[in-house]
């Protein structure tokens, strides 16, 4: 993970460069540079084209052949999208859901990870295994009973229904525990000798030291909750409680609505996660590769 963005000296990837003559090396490298740019544009094409189309005037949208870059930038699709569906309300709902889940996961995971790292108790291994076992249970298996639970609690179309099932996570507990284990044991020993309580040690020492791990978990939790689809679809029926992902369907389902308007809606609901992704790229990577790759 450490090599993620370490400023290594400029050079060629060993896999691609044999001992070539300098001019040939340059040509190959330039070629690879160009290939990388083309591939980057290809990967991003659906998004870039969607964003470009969201800024086109209705006349230009229907032009044949289609234009890649809008000739005049027009925000009409955005105002129309906001009029067609209460997108601001959807955004608020998603912020509340994702925010609550993120805070909840940080708290529950930090507490559990602390117990697994610093407290010795009988059955610790078994309980940790029990936590990890929740990772192997696909959401579909708990879907129907959870829907029934939420319904019997009278929580359909409420924020608790959107957030409650996700307030604890074995992944987060695992991630934080891995980090806590790297905190020098001497700190804990010193704290114990000084008569520092567990609670205080967690709040004053562990939490500040583990900020990078918390950031990773927070970004991961927010991103994955924001992008949820199936669960919000089940527990929310009312228009004003929809999250952004479900709200998008309103734009799509209206026959009169043009694709450029849908693309404007997509840009608005994807923008928050894009900013989060760009700002916290390293954390996203760390979150995704935790447990995926050894070392």
């Amino acid at each position, binding site marked *: 993970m450490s*090599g*993620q963005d370490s400023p290594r*000296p*400029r050079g*060629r*990837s060993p*896999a691609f460069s*044999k001992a070539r003559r300098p001019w040939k090396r340059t040509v190959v490298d330039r070629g*690879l540079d160009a290939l*990388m740019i083309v*591939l*980057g544009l290809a*990967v991003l094409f*659906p998004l870039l*084209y969607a964003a470009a189309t969201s800024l086109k005037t209705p006349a230009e949208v229907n032009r044949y052949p*289609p234009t890649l870059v809008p000739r005049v930038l027009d925000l009409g699709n955005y105002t129309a999208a906001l009029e067609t569906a209460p997108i601001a309300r959807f955004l608020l709902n998603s912020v509340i859901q994702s925010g609550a889940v993120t805070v909840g996961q940080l*708290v*529950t995971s930090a*507490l*559990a990870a*602390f*117990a697994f790292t610093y*407290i010795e*108790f009988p059955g610790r291994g078994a309980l940790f295994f029990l*936590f990890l076992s*929740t990772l192997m*249970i*696909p959401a579909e*298996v*708990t879907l*129907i*009973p*959870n829907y*029934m*639970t939420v319904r019997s609690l009278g929580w359909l179309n409420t924020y608790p229904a959107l957030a*409650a099932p996700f*307030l*604890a996570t074995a992944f987060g*507990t695992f991630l934080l525990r891995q980090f806590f284990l790297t905190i020098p044991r001497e700190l804990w020993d010193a704290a114990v000798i000084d008569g520092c309580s567990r609670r205080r040690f967690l709040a004053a020492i562990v939490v500040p030291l583990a900020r990078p791990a918390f950031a990773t978990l927070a970004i991961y939790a927010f991103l994955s909750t*924001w*992008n949820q689809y*199936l669960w919000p679809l089940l527990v929310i029926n009312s228009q004003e409680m929809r999250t952004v*992902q479900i709200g*998008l369907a309103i734009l799509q389902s209206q026959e009169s609505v043009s*694709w450029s308007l*849908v*693309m404007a809606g997509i840009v608005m*609901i*994807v923008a928050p*996660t894009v900013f*989060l*992704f*760009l700002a916290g790229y390293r954390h*996203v990577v760390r979150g*995704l*590769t935790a447990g*995926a*790759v*050894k*070392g």
Partner: protein
Amino acid sequence: MSDAAARAPVRLRPRSAGISGLAAALGYLIPSLAVFTVFVFYPLVKNVQLSLYETSPLGGLGLFVGAGNYVQLLGDPAFLDSLRVTFVFALYTVPAGILLGLPLALLANRRIRAIIVFRTAYSFTIAVSIAAAALIWEWLLDPNVGVLNYLLGLVHGPKIGWLTDPRWALPAVAATTVWKDLGFNVVVLLAALQGVPDELMEAARIDGAGPWRIFRSVVVPAISPALFFVGVAGTIGVLQSFGQVNILTQGGPVGATNVIVYSIYRNAFFNFRFGLAAAQAMLLFILVLILTGLQFTVFERFVTYQ
């Protein structure tokens, strides 16, 4: 005070630290345990129970049918077809995801200026939700105004109804999925490539190995755990696909994209056959468990760890 006090704690520690340790630990574990109990463990048991009953349209337990729901499913051509569709979907999606992700990860592992820009671009789809991805692709695949048919038209190709033609619907949904998952594959494979020691490749180069040989005999074995992880995690993820199907095709045309989770969703929340849907979910669970088991046992032997 001296003797007894000095010895007593040592002797008592295991037991008293045990009980008081457990009490203290539970204080920290209870928030998580409460959530898991209500939303993971209880529903898991409840789902097993549901799968053994006929249920009322509201989900109440009716007649106990034992394995009846399972027997019915395994004899139901529609369910077997949805299993087949799910497997074909995985076959379209997972290998393609690796074949596209690996070259991108290799390029993203070059040591050039501004490489972070490329790494971000190649893994960008992580930031995109499945709903947004599906809507964008629905538009790209639109038979009349979509880019794909426009490009086909330029080479005088036929106008294809990507999402309405039974032959093309599943590949089209798979293409959407491959694009959406590409970012994840790149991130995992790139992390693995960054862990391959330079000395390893240097040694191979000194022995006269060319780029292809180095790739095949050094790089691939070194990142085989990650390749395997992407394969298994990708398959598990694809088995659970729902959003793209719900948005793009609703399982159609004529069941061509009726993957298992979509079928569960229809049975439970449209046909109100909760017992049957619960049994379907159990079968999916077993599939996922088998794959997870594979990851932990069989392939450990064939995969090179450092």
